[in-house]
């Protein structure tokens, strides 16, 4: 595995999040390096979603620290995490169905025209956004999106996922977090998304992959963090542990060996 030395690009220490009387996260650590895919697995209620929401700024942890490139950061809203170079692909994808692919890619970060048209009339540079959208999609090697002027609602599930991943890959300078990216997809489309995950990693990004799907995680992850009941119970690699062992640790049937 590469990139395991040096400062992690994203690190969390002792994260705690409590919802009323329910413990969402219980003293959870996480370390992520550039050029690696970290799988996060766990049963329902294991704290997977809460963990990534804290890392993406959608939730503010009650205690604990987050570091980006070794510097402490505080994310109060998703915009803060985004500005730090962390992009998230939510399970719901967060795309506007009636809008086209290029518009979705640049949603909430539109480019204005140069000169008074942009500064006074606040006119958008649609042509530039389309041009850049096409470049991003080509750079990420996404072949399933042909016409970037196509409305997202006319796309298949895998293509929509590709739009959301393309947006994250285009603007995430350091980390891309994917929440259950293959949950709604068929076999072939799942394969396409997993290839995208590898492409993101090969471009030097750090990827967090949250999934229920054990074979998917074992296929692409370099390391796998196992969550149980809001706590991190271990970090394994596909090389050292089998899927069955990971499930045993996840369900509490087995403790992680030394």
């Amino acid at each position: 595995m590469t990139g395991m030395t040096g400062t992690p690009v994203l690190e969390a220490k002792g994260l705690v999040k409590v919802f009323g009387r329910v413990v969402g996260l219980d003293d959870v650590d996480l370390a992520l390096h550039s050029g690696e895919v970290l799988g996060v697995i766990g049963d329902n209620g294991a704290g997977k979603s809460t963990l990534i929401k804290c890392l993406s700024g959608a939730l503010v942890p009650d205690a604990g620290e987050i570091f980006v490139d070794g510097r402490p950061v505080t994310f109060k809203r998703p915009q803060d995490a985004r500005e730090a170079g962390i992009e998230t692909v939510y399970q719901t994808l967060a795309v506007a169905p009636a809008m086209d692919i290029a518009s979705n890619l640049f949603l909430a970060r539109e480019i204005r025209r140069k000169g008074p048209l942009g500064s006074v009339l606040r006119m958008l540079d649609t042509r530039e956004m389309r041009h850049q959208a096409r470049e991003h999609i080509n750079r990420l090697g996404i072949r399933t999106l042909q016409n970037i002027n196509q409305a997202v609602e006319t796309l298949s599930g895998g293509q929509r996922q590709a739009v959301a991943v393309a947006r994250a890959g285009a603007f995430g300078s350091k980390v891309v977090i994917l929440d259950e990216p293959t949950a709604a997809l068929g076999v072939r489309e799942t394969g396409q998304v997993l290839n995208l995950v590898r492409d993101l990693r090969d471009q030097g990004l750090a990827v967090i992959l949250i999934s229920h799907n054990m074979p998917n995680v074992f296929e692409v992850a370099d390391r796998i963090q196992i969550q149980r009941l809001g706590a991190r119970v271990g970090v394994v690699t596909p090389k050292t542990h089998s899927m069955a062992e990971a499930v045993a640790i996840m369900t509490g049937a087995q403790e992680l060996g030394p």
Partner: protein
Amino acid sequence: MTVQTGDQAPPPSAEELLNRPPTLGQRVHAVLHRQPALSPAIVLVLACVAFGLLNDRFFRLENLSLVAQQVAVVGSLAAGQTLIILTAGIDLSIGAVMVLASLVMSKLAFDEGLPGVPALLVGAAIAVAAETVNGLLVTQIKLPPFIVTLGTLSVFTAITLIYAQGQTVSLPPGAFLLWSGKTVSIGSLHLTNGVLMMIALYGVIGFALRYTAWGRHLYAVGDDLEAASLTGISVKRVLLSAYMVAGLATAVAAWILVGRVGGGDPNSGLNANLESITAVVIGGTSLFGGRGVVLGSLIGAFIVQVFDNGLALAGYDPNYQVLAVGLLVIAAVSVDQWIRSVRA
């Protein structure tokens, strides 16, 4: 098992089925999906041709001028209503706000002797403030827009009637506030300043919706509020701004109304609430939000007026216009349902 004979074509593969040319229905669907104002535009053209054939006075410029003048008030209101409906909301109180603002303008100018400009500005501020109240109730207390504006419809109507004390205000000829009703003649086309104001309003709102980030965010919020919020759009701010800009459009409509009735009348514009919604819906804007163009609402407002005018010229009972508009609303919503049903 029988051996397949040579003259029998093999069943098509999935790939072939995928690549077969789109049917006529699919093509029409795709075009309407991209151009939501196209179907109302076709209806308007067909209606004009039909009424022109029924009575050749229909196409006289004097008659078309009259239609344009009659459209100005509801047309302006519909521009504001479009913004709210695009956010998947609805404003049942917008007409009541307009009447209140028009009365405030007229009364301040006539009863209090305020000069025209400050009277206009105070009335406009009242319209924006009233719509801001709607917007705050929707964004801060998170009430459904239908319920909020059903309530404020009564509130604003009551305030108007209490403030008017049963009186109407007639402004003297030459008063500044009547400028909006002044005729502007281009050949034998006799428009009013109000008509030009409405056109300018559509220009500004159309530009903002199409060419600015604010416009895109408005569509995104109406399309999928949750998704818009996750992409980092400040949903509350966008929603509130939609109501406030609708308030500005309502202020324009109020001024045009003052010009048309010659002052302030608490009983004017009684049907304006529903008429503005009718214009927006006939204009192809989806009541479910996120789809539509403001130009469609102008076309929608014209369709309603053209039916009114054309049927009268053709000598039909005016109730047929009510019937026709009702059928058009149902047709428009049906078309919208069909347009929104898209599969990959």
